[in-house]
C-alpha cells in the first residue's frame, strides 16, 4: 500500500526457499487497475501458450477462467452497487450506483490441497515455501487433480499446444523463488495489488487493510481465506468486496478427501455383500 509506511516486499531479493519460510500472495482488488500485466508477465516468464484470442463480452475480461494455460486471470466485475462512499457522478446516464471491481485470480496453494492428495503419480508436491507444485516431467495426465480441485484451477492442457496432455497450474514461480526472485506477477504489478511475502506478514497486512477499508466506507470488504473449512486456509488469499460467489469463488470449499471415508465404507460393504450373494447363489442353487 503505497504511501502508508508499509514497506514493499515485491522488489526485494529474498532467501525464503533456502530458509523454508512459508510465503503467499495477498491480492487486493481495491488498488487493482485491471492492466493485466500480471497475466502477461506470467505467460512470458513461464512460457505458457496462448489461450485463444476470443471476445467474451464479459466486461473487459477476455481471459475467462484459470486453466492449464491461464495461471493468472484478471476478473472484471461490474456491479450495481456503490464503491465505498462514492456517489454516481454526472457522467452516468442515470444515478444508479455502480462499481467496477478488478481482481487477479490465481491458484490458491491450499493448506490442504485437493490436487496434491489426488495425484496418483506423486507429480504434485509441496515445496519448501509451502506452495503446491506440479512436476511436469512426472505427470502422466490422468486428469484426477482436475476434478479434485475445489477451486477449479488446475486443468489438463489439450492438444495441439506445447507440452499437451499434462496438468498445469501456477507454479508460484518456484524457479524464480529458488534464485531469490519474486514471482513474476507480483514483481510486475504496478500498484502492488498483488503482494508477495511471508504468509504471516501478509495475513496481518490483509486484516489491517480490511479494517482500513471498512472505516473508509467499503462496508462489504472482507478477506477470502477459508480457514474454517477442510481446506484450512489458502496461501494465495484475497480481499474481496461483497460475496465470494460473484467472483466465482466457492463460499465453503472442501478438500474431496473428506468424502473418502463414507465412500470406502460403502465400497467395502458392497464388496462383502457381493461375495455373500455369490456364495449363497452357489450354495443354495447348485
Amino acid at each position, binding site marked *: 500500500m503505497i504511501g502508508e509506511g508499509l514497506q514493499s516486499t515485491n522488489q526485494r531479493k529474498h532467501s525464503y526457499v533456502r530458509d523454508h519460510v512459508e510465503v503467499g500472495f495477498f491480492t487486493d482488488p481495491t488498488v487493482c487497475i485491471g492492466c493485466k500485466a500480471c497475466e502477461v508477465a506470467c505467460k512470458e516468464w513461464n512460457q505458457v501458450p496462448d489461450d485463444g484470442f476470443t471476445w467474451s463480452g*464479459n466486461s473487459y475480461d477476455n481471459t475467462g477462467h484459470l486453466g492449464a494455460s491461464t495461471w493468472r486471470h484478471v476478473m472484471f466485475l461490474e*456491479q450495481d452497487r456503490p464503491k465505498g462512499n462514492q456517489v454516481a457522478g454526472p457522467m452516468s446516464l442515470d444515478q444508479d450506483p455502480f462499481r467496477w471491481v478488478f481482481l487477479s485470480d490465481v491458484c490458491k496453494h491450499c493448506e490442504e490441497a485437493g490436487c496434491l492428495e*489426488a495425484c496418483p503419480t506423486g507429480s504434485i508436491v509441496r515445496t519448501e515455501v509451502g506452495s503446491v507444485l506440479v512436476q511436469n516431467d512426472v505427470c502422466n495426465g490422468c486428469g484426477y487433480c482436475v476434478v479434485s480441485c475445489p477451486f477449479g484451477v488446475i486443468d489438463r492442457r489439450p492438444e495441439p499446444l506445447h507440452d499437451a496432455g499434462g496438468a498445469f497450474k501456477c507454479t508460484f514461480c518456484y524457479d524464480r523463488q529458488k534464485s531469490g526472485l519474486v514471482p513474476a506477477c507480483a514483481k510486475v504489478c504496478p500498484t502492488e495489488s498483488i503482494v508477495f511475502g511471508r504468509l504471516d506478514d501478509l495475513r496481518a497486512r490483509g486484516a489491517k487493510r480490511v479494517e482500513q477499508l471498512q472505516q473508509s466506507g467499503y462496508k462489504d470488504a472482507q478477506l477470502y481465506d477459508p480457514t474454517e473449512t477442510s481446506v484450512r486456509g489458502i496461501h494465495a488469499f484475497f480481499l474481496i468486496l461483497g460475496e465470494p460467489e460473484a467472483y466465482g469463488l466457492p463460499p465453503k470449499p472442501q478438500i474431496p478427501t473428506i468424502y473418502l471415508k463414507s465412500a470406502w465404507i460403502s465400497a467395502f460393504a458392497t464388496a462383502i455383500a457381493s461375495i455373500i450373494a455369490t*456364495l449363497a447363489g*452357489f450354495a443354495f442353487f*447348485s
Partner: protein
Amino acid sequence: MTNGPQAEQRLEQLREEAWKKGVVPGKGVDVAGGPIPRKPGYYGQPVVKPPVWTWEIPLYFFFGGMAGMSGVIASGAIIFHQVDLARAAMWVAAVGGAVLSPILLIMDLGRPHLFLNMLRVFKHRSAMSMGAWILSAFGACAVPGLIALELHAHQIFPGTLDQLLRVAAGIFIFGSAIFGTLLATYTGVLIGATAIPAWFLHRVLLPIHFGTAGLGSAAAVLELLGHRIAALNFIGFYAAGVETALLVWLSVDKHGAADRAIHDHGSGWLIRIGEVLNGPLALALRFFAFIPFAAISFLLGALVSRVGWIVVGKVSGADPESVFAAERY
C-alpha cells in the same frame, strides 16, 4: 458507429435484450452476459473444472466392474466344483481386467507413454492411486490364475506338478476375487471423492451401484456365454433387485440445485434409462425366465448408466450454482 440518437436507441435495445436473454444473437453482435453479470457466479463460469475424461472411462468402469466380479464368481465356482464355469469366469476376468481395462485407462491418459508413473507411489488418500494398484494386483492374480486353471483342467502336467498347479490356481483365483471386488467398487469412490457436486453428494450410492452393476454384468455375460445355471440366475436376481432399489433411492435422495444435473437435466436421463434397464426391466425379464434378454438388458443398463454418471459429472461441474448450493447445503 455514430453517436446519433438512432445508434443510442439500438444500443438500448441490445442492452434490454441482453438483460432479458443473457445473449444477443445478431450480425456483428456477440454479447454473452451483457455489462452487469446476471448469470450465476462470475459470468456463469464454472467454479470447479468438469472432468476431462472421455468415452474410455465409462467403458473402463463397465469392463473393470465385469472383470472384477467375474473373479468372485470364479471363486464361488471353484469352491462348489464347477470347473467349466470357473474357467469361463477367469477368461472374462483376465481379458477384461488385464487387457481391456489397462488399454482403456492408458488411452485416456494425456501422456500414455508415462502410464508406469501410476506405480511410482502408493497413496491411500488418492482413490486413483489405489485404483492403479488394485488393477495391477488384480491383473497379477487373474492372468496366472487363468493359466494355472487351464493347465490343470487340461491335465498338461502329470502328478505333483498338477497338484501344485491346482493349489496355485486356487490361491490366484481367490486373490482375483478379493482384488476383483475392490476393482468393481473403487470406481464409485474414485468419482465420489471429488469436488463435483452431483458425484460427491452420491458418494455412498456410487460404489454400491458400480459394484452391483459389475456383479450383475459378470453373471449376465457368463449366462450369454452359455452357462445357464441357477446360481448365476440367483446372482442376476440379486443384482437387478439391488439396482431397482438404487433407482428408488436416487429418485428420493434429491439435493435441489446441487445435484440438478441428475434430476432436472437431460444427462440424468442416461442414468435413469440405465437404471431401468439393469433394475426393474432386467428383474421382470428374469422373473418371466427370459434369461438372455434379462442378461442383455442388464449389460446395456450397466453401460448406459456408467456413461450417464460421467456425463452428469461434466454437466454438474460446469454449473456454478450446483457448487454454491452443495456448499450451502
